[in-house]
């Protein structure tokens, strides 16, 4: 077994941002800086998510992918607002290896087949962002803003059957809280989905990772806050773009909900507890 540790970087207007339950986005710095640090720390892959692209119906993440490719030699999974094949081509040409779609697939499920036919299953990841409503899990689109009546598991199965190569599953309730991934959802997904899947949301300790691995068998864990807040770019506040909520980073403080764990720490723990064959790429 090999579990990929995947830093997830949410991007808004060229800045790295992070929210809680996909809201209240704080500006944390230059995403390339963070990606470089994660590369040095032994990350297995980098996710870039343009979080306003879907809402504003634009995607301008290519220049960031290019800048990152100059010295970050890792697989890159990129998404946010992708709704046509031209965008996919441009993103792949800029240095990304795979793309993910969410809103466009919910609006038009056949879009999954289209991408698979043109670029292959191994290039396409379907991202699903869900909330718990009563005892159900329902999918949302436009970075959590728009409700749908699609059930998490039935939609995940449909994405799988239409040819998605992998899924990224985000528990919106868990995102940014540091309280661990929704274990019940993790178990459900694991029981029902045959293709590889990445879990995202809430992980802030080794304990959370152990719990989630006992409940499910993901191919990777996407981690945001825990890594970002462990390695805040304190110098960034001096060269800040005056855009978005920059109050936090200007104060030059750390965030108490999150400790200071590195990717190396996580991998060491995985080797010890789960006998994983982990090599560090650092």
């Amino acid at each position: 077994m090999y579990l990929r540790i995947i830093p997830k970087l949410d991007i808004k207007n060229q800045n790295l941002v992070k929210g809680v339950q996909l809201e209240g986005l704080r500006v944390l710095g230059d995403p390339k800086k963070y990606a470089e640090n994660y590369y040095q720390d032994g990350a297995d892959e980098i996710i870039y998510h343009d979080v306003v692209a879907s809402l504003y119906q634009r995607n301008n993440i290519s220049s960031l992918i290019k800048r990152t490719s100059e010295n970050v030699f890792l697989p890159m999974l990129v998404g946010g607002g992708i709704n046509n094949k031209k965008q996919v081509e441009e993103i792949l040409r800029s240095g990304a290896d795979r793309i993910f779609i969410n809103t466009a697939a919910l609006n038009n499920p056949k879009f999954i087949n289209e991408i698979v036919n043109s670029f292959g299953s191994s290039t396409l990841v379907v991202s699903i962002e869900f909330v718990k409503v009563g005892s159900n899990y329902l999918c949302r689109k436009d970075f959590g803003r728009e409700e749908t009546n699609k059930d998490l598991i039935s939609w995940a199965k449909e994405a799988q059957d239409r040819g998605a190569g992998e899924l990224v599953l985000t528990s919106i309730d868990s995102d940014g809280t540091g309280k661990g991934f929704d274990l019940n959802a993790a178990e459900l997904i694991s029981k029902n989905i045959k293709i590889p899947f990445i879990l995202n949301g809430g992980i802030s300790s080794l304990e959370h990772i152990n719990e989630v691995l006992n409940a499910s068998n993901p191919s990777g864990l996407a981690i945001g806050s825990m890594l970002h807040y462990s390695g805040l770019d304190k110098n960034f506040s001096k060269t800040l773009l005056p855009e978005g909520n920059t109050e936090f980073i200007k104060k030059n403080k750390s965030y108490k909900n999150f400790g200071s764990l590195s990717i190396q720490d996580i991998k060491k723990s995985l080797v010890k507890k789960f006998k994983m064959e982990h090599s560090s790429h650092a």
Partner: protein
Amino acid sequence: MHDVAIIDYNMGNLFSIDCALKFTGLNSIITNNLDEIENSKCIILPGVGAFPEAMKRLKEKKLDTAIYNFNLKKKPIVGICLGMQLLFTSSYENTATKGLGILEGEVKKFTTNKKTENHVFNVGWRKISLSKKKDEESLLKNLGEEKMYFIHSYHVSVKDKNIESSSSQFYDKKFTASIKKENIQAFQFHPEKSGKKGIEIYYSLKKYLNLLTV
């Protein structure tokens, strides 16, 4: 004159390869210009996508002839991912298609009876096992049993196992992860996406090319 010409036939992640080469200090160019290709010290044949389409595009731009001529002079050729597969006799991707035929072997789809159909592609970090043969010119010579990044659903079944420089495993299937034959070295994985160990391969390429000029 460039150290490395990355052959541009509009398929695959050429940009990342160019970045990796430039990172090590090599002078590289992404090109489909036949003179630029002929005049470079080394060519890289990259590629992501379907085999038949790739062969079609290579022929349309006469890049196949450029590669044959380069090989006749025994100048270094590096293949990556689909670029490795294209060097072989033929492929069964979608329909039977003839490859460049510089090396002997067939490109076949992964099959495994253990998992669902959705599972028959290999994406992720896999360990490579190096062949025991000592070879000072091998670009893998500074590496151990490292994990490299793979993303493919077809693999090469080589006719002559002696050209295999490393192998890897996908479920119960052992497959050729890289080959070396005389002036040709090729990798099924992506060295430019495989972290610092992968970049080591590009550094080895640089040293190898520098020695050639002496």
